[in-house]
């Protein structure tokens, strides 16, 4: 068994898991953080995207043992009981998600982008979301939502 201690959404968590356990399985099966989805389990679809030390990664391709001592942010770490994260709010307003299965991964990728680059171009947004597949093909409204959230985060637009 592999012992891991990591910070998830600002909270220190520990678990003992078989060495082949992926970060995604650790989050979903050990900590019941089921917001990160298992879509392909081979790093193609991006439904499992989480932020590790500031970088969006495919949680299905990272071993639990590799995140020992590191900082992980999942979709569950974005909203508070009082308010949604501006990206989540924009995704709701723009009806950016249809079946929703890709949504948490897309939002996390967008957060990874806006944390590094608060004023991205449309091309940069597309590039940041290129690892996230949406089979309902609603990319246009996702990009619009990310642009809107970026404006709010930059303080150019009041949060509705």
């Amino acid at each position, binding site marked *: 068994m592999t012992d891991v201690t990591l910070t998830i959404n600002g909270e220190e968590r520990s678990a003992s898991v*078989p060495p*082949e356990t992926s970060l995604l399985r650790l989050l*979903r099966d050990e900590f*019941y953080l*089921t*917001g*990160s*989805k*298992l*879509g*392909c*389990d*081979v790093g*193609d*679809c991006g*439904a499992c995207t989480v932020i590790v030390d500031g970088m969006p990664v495919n949680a299905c391709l990272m071993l639990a043992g590799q995140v020992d001592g590191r900082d992980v942010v*999942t*979709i*569950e770490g*974005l*909203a*508070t*009981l*009082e*308010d*949604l994260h501006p*990206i*989540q*709010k924009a*995704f*709701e*307003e723009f*009806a*950016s*998600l249809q*079946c*929703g*299965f*890709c*949504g*948490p991964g897309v*939002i996390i990728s967008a957060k990874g982008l806006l944390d590094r680059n608060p004023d991205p171009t449309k091309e940069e947004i597309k590039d940041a979301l290129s690892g996230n*597949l*949406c*089979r*309902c093909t609603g990319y246009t409204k996702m990009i619009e939502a990310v642009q809107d959230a970026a404006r709010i985060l930059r303080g150019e637009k009041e*949060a*509705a």
Partner: protein
Amino acid sequence: MTDDVKVADKTDSLTDLKETDEDLRLPSVVEPAHFPVETIDTEARHQTPAVGQRATRPDGRLHGLGQTKYIDDITFPNMLFAKMKRAGISSALIKSIDTSEAEAMPGVAAVLTGKEIPVNSYGPSYQDQPVLADERVFHAGDPVAAVAAVTEQIAEEACERIKVEYEPLEPVYDPVEAMKDEIKVHPPHSNIYATKRIKKGDLEKGFAEADHIFEGVYSTQMIEHVPLEPHASIAQWDPNGRVTLWSSLGRITLGRADIARTLDMPINKIRIVGTIVGGNFGGKNEITTEPALALLSRKTGRPVKMVYTREEEFIASTTRHPFIMEYKTGVTDDGMITARKVRLVLDGGAYCSWSETTLGKACILSAGPYNIENLLAEAYCMYTNKTMTGAMRGFGAPQVCFAYESQMDEIAHKLGIDPLELRMKNAFHEGSASPTGQVLQSVVVKDSLEKAAERFGWKEDGQ
């Protein structure tokens, strides 16, 4: 009925109706955020307060929060995980299945084979698909046994330890070859399991009137739906003899009847909870693993979950039919279609699934949205030893569209007519009759074409 029931006033706006909702929602955001309400002032559309208003999706917030519970997000205490052993051979007789080594593995709770299934066949129109293949394998993705274990890994390893002895049979993969019936997929039945024929006018007369005859063969490939959420189900057989199934199945009522049939039990003993589906596109329209999971739950007394791997999505779920489409069209010098003969061969794969529906719709739409007085359309659906095909967005309509529009372009090119003009000349108009005689109303195909051409600058491109 009591008097205090509040009936929505037609003058209420969506925002009014949603106010109560907003107060109860978490996270309790300050104000409901909507687009500015733009009311489209069209008098004919004032039936409900929803028409003409912008609305947000009621499920959008949960999706974005990651709080929507798809099947794989649901866990029950003491739950087992199932895996299926896939045949890996496309046509064979099953001589024996030895599950003893798998059953002896620590962590394995139960192994199930096809012989234990009360009625081992299902399907929405023909019941030609086994839940678990027991006597014969019809395509390589067929499951031959199912295992329930305490972890997915153990279930997978147990599948590898199941020994199946096959007597290989000669397979048939090409649908046109399959039409000869020399190799039968489901003997003694013919490989041609569904046909449709539409006849209108006098084909010979129509071709005689034509100045040019165009012939072409068009084909499309097999396509998988690839929903982001793989097929998933959980079964729980309770001590009162009732089974509850949480399933990503889209048609739960139909599925319930199919499950009752396979389990040979009254339908009222079966409860299906249709959870939020992470993409369907037609691929989750029939039962898959549910009866096997129900029986594994019965054998173990524990809830059993199974989620398809991405690979299983491709090899064991339905796909879009590959079509082979032969088109012969007679056209006059000025581009009027006088006759069209169509032959469609649908590669149905190993099982019927929704092929009948696909065949029917494809055949009806095969002439395209054009006024063709003399028409013969024939369609055949074939069994082959491949992954089965079924419902997928459009039920065969996109395939035939590819063929007839490709041929329209060829005709336009050869006759030197603008492709748009050729379509405008032949397209349906108000009151046109479809190949099956349906008189069409609200026909806007020409308007749509004109508007589209204007929007994307068809003329300016000098096409």
